[in-house]
């Protein structure tokens, strides 16, 4: 190890060589090389974490660049893990980087996590977050949880016992995985680019604090951070005891993480051409489930407005049409609506969802 590289943190009182050696000897896995993953990876690599694993199956796109600061315009279309590994290795050639260009799922999660001492969850969906939580709880791996929404972030450290030897996990806060579309993600909701930068950097700080045994770790606390007001709010988490975690790898593989509506095709995903053709058929009801403030407004008298937040009312009415088509901004909330209506009407009606949403088919409206 080149001590000169880490000199400014080694000289820090309470840190020193022992802490630096702990960083060098540790292996940290960052799942998701996105808005949270990029800044976290930069600081973990710079700080000298000996081995860093990166999991992400996605490629760089233009709309990533305002917050995913490891990537440049030239990287568009390339695998995030490959670009990230290259940049980090340039920053710090002394560390080892393992890349996993896969989507984390039930079949690979145990094998990938097993090798690492600390896991940082910077994914962007509940399916991955619940899977990672359950796998970390099963393997007793410290999990640094970081998530963002709009202008706010949530942070926690799970599976690390406190002074009373009590540890908690994500299911102690939210025992049941929300359905897809129930809570909007970045693509649906928008996000200020600097927010995951701040939250991802705090997450990296928690990793470094935990490994070096420095400071007060965020154990059994959920911290909210609002980037606009600058306010933080910390809540004590206590064990909930009314949920079941998988206790073995087999039990984990039997859990359902992907939204059930994706697995069982209770409705049909269509493109704009099929939508047009359906609109010309009799007995078809097209419903826009976006909230009233969303743009672009569709000035089509044959499209009914029924925002997700008011969908309950529509569910209570009796729809006479045989075919119901749901549309929304990106085709995610419309899946939830399709699922809810399938639950009510079963196979007595044909239910459709516009794949990719209005954004994808903007020219067709």
């Amino acid at each position, binding site marked *: 190890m080149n001590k000169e590289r880490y000199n400014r943190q080694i000289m820090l009182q309470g840190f020193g060589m022992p802490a630096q050696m702990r960083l060098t000897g540790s292996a940290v896995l960052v799942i998701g090389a996105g808005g949270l993953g990029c800044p976290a990876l930069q600081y973990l690599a710079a700080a000298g974490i000996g081995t860093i694993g990166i999991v992400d199956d996605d490629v760089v796109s233009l709309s990533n660049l305002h917050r995913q600061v490891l990537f440049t315009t030239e990287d568009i279309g390339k695998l995030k893990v490959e670009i990230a590994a290259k940049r980090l290795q340039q920053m710090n050639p002394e560390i080892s980087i393992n890349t996993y260009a896969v989507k984390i799922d039930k079949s690979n999660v145990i094998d990938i996590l097993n090798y690492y001492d600390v896991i940082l969850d910077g994914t962007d969906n509940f399916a991955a977050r619940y899977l990672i939580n359950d796998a970390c709880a099963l393997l007793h791996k410290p999990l640094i949880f970081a998530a*963002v929404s709009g202008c706010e972030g*949530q942070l926690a450290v799970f599976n690390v016992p406190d002074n009373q030897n009590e540890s908690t996990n994500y299911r102690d806060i939210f025992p049941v995985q929300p359905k897809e579309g129930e809570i909007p993600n970045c693509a649906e909701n928008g996000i200020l680019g600097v927010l995951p930068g701040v939250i991802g950097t705090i997450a990296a700080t928690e990793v470094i604090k935990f490994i070096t045994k420095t400071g007060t770790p965020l154990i059994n606390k959920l911290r909210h951070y609002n980037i606009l007001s600058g306010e933080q709010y910390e809540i004590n988490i206590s064990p909930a005891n009314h949920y079941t975690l998988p206790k073995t790898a087999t039990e984990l593989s039997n859990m359902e993480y992907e939204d059930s509506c994706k697995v069982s095709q209770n409705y049909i995903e269509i493109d704009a051409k099929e939508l047009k053709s359906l609109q010309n058929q009799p007995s078809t009801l097209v419903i826009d489930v976006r909230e009233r403030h969303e743009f672009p407004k569709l000035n089509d008298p044959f499209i009914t407005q029924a925002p997700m937040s008011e969908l309950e009312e529509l569910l209570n009415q009796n729809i006479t049409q045989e075919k119901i088509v749901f549309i929304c901004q990106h085709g995610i909330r419309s899946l939830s609506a399709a699922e809810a209506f399938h639950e009510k009407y079963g196979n007595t009606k044909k239910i459709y969802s516009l794949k990719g949403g209005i954004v994808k088919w903007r020219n067709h409206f």
Partner: protein
Amino acid sequence: MEIQLISFGKISEFMESQKMEIPDMSNTDELKTYLEQCFPKLVGMKYKLALNKNMVQTSQELKNNDTIAIMPPFSGG
């Protein structure tokens, strides 16, 4: 009685953080029912309450001037 309500994420879009005058009630379960009546968007949504910065796992006694935080799960990355 009066409570201080602190809301987060999507919930703060329809339920602002505020001092709130509520009918007298004895516990957080009753408060949940009351809040869901006042803010119907909460119904069917996943959220968690914290009473005076402690997460509510089972119904807790509610007192005048208590602080209630209400938060949804975040998934963004």
